[in-house]
Structure formats: C-alpha cells, structure tokens
C-alpha cells in the first residue's frame, strides 16, 4: 500500500521546463530591438525647393501662402482674393481659418499640388512646420519654401 502511494506521488511531480533556449533567444533579441527602437518618434517632413522640380513647380495653380510674424495670407488663386488672417491674438483659430481657405481652394482645384510658402525672416521654425502641415493635410502635398524680403 505504501509503495503504491509512493509511486503515485512520483508520477504527479511536475516536470520543469527547460527555459534556457528561450532565455538565449531573448538575450539575443533584446539588444537587437533596443538598437532599432525609437523612444521619441521622429518623422520626416518632405520639402521642395524652387527650381528643383517640386509639386508646386508643376502645379497649374500657383498657390502661395505668405507667412509673416502677424498674419497668414493666401495668394495666387485666380479670380479670388483672400483677406490676410491675423494670427496675433488667436494662433490656433487663425490656423483653422487658413485650413478652411486651403480646403476650399483644393475643392475648387483638386488637380493642383504643392504650395509655395513665403516666410518672413523672423518667423520661428515651429510656425513654418505648422503651416506646412496645414498645406499637406489640405491635399496640396509638399511645400516649397521661399524667404520673404525683410
């Protein structure tokens, strides 16, 4: 009776998994993934240059967005004149208004691509990227940057 009990006990003893191969795999994978991991997601923003054959050069519409320290102004749309949008008091609201104008232009000229950004010298880089985003999201693609005279 006691032998039978002992045998039954030995049979139910859990077998240990051999985790060493899995550990080896993890030890190889972790440094490889650490090397190619990005903790701050940095992405690329395309840019066209005047005379290098960008979308704005080939577009039938010569859309230009003038960006100064105090306002946005959309130019180059046939038969339309847009009033400058002041961005002094409410920059976010001004961007929304600019986006609405750009959306309207893209709806009228869906085949057009690219826009020329004419930027004043003292405008911070962050503001330039914001306008480039609005232009891209409205469907015009990459922007061409031009420096405005002081």
């Amino acid at each position: 009776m006691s032998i039978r009990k002992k045998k039954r006990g030995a049979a139910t003893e859990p077998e240990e998994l051999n985790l060493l191969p899995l550990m080896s795999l993890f030890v190889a994978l972790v440094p490889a993934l650490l090397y190619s991991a990005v903790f701050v997601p940095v992405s690329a923003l395309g840019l066209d240059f005047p005379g290098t054959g960008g979308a704005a050069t080939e577009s039938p519409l010569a859309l230009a967005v003038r960006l100064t320290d105090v306002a946005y102004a959309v130019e180059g749309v046939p038969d339309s004149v847009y009033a400058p949008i002041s961005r002094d008091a409410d920059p976010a609201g001004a961007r929304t208004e600019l986006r609405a104008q750009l959306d309207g232009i893209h709806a009228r000229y869906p085949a057009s691509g690219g826009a020329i950004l004419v930027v004043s010298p003292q405008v911070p880089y962050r503001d330039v990227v914001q306008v480039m985003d609005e232009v891209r999201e409205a469907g015009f693609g990459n922007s061409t940057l031009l420096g405005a005279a002081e």
Partner: protein
Amino acid sequence: MRRYLTVTGMRERKRRSTEAPVIARLQLTSLIDIFTVLLLFLLKSLVVGGAVVSPFPGVSLPPSSSTASFKESPVVVVAKNQIVVDGEAVCPTDEVTQSTELKVTALEQALAAVRQKTESLAERAGSSRKFEGKLILQADETIPFHVLQKVMYTSQTVGFYDITLAVIQK
C-alpha cells in the same frame, strides 16, 4: 557531549552519501516574465524600414502630423547655440544669425567634406550608387526662418538638394 557529536556527524555523512547529488537550478520564470514585457515594449517602438533618427540633445524639434520615414543621409543640426554636421560642431548659431551673407562658409566646408567622403567611399567600394544629395535637417523649433534659409542655401551650393526636415510625430 563529544561522543554525541561524533555519532551525529557520522550519521550526517552517511545520510549525505546515500542522497542524490544536489543540482542547483536557477528560477528563470520571473526573468522570462521581465523579458517578455520588455520584448513587447521594444517591438512596439521598433522602426522597420528607413533610418533611425534620434533628436540631437538639447534640440526641441517642432511637432508635425507627418509620419514619413527617413532614408540614410547625413544630418545637419541647428541647435540654439551651434550648428552640427554629422555629430561635429561646425560653427556657433549666433554667427549665422548675425551674418548678412546667405552662404555659411564653415558649414559649406563641412558639407563638402561629407560629400567627398561619401563619394570616395562609394568609389572605393566599387558601388554604382551615385551621390544622391540627401540631407536630414534637425532644427530647434525656436530658430528663426532666416537661419534655416542660410543653412538650406549653403547645403544646396554643395549639392544637397534633397532636404528632409526632422519633426516630432504628434
């Protein structure tokens, strides 16, 4: 007392000799748990295809909705205090800010050296790949546009026509 110890010692020795040899096993389960979590986290932040670009220390990149990836290219950093080409400081940013010239001579020389190095490496390796003129520009979000304009103009004079801006994904 002495006799008792001797007997106990003998018994102990006898017991040890009859027992199976002790094999020390590592308890790896908790370590495997840590590795599994770490692996999932790293897989989430993995970049597949395209070059990995890390922001230069001290440079606050502007946020953007763009999600495009980079191609392997030299990196020009316009930080608040200095301009850096491929990890080497080239000139102070103040110097570029105050300059009335569009061309930045120190930057031009550094980029020309980068181009020459790239071309000679490709030639030595017998590669048919031409110099593509690609450049990644990392600039602090507070830098005024005229500084960037000078940097971009100088880059173009050396042949870097395909400039990509580095931005932080929103």
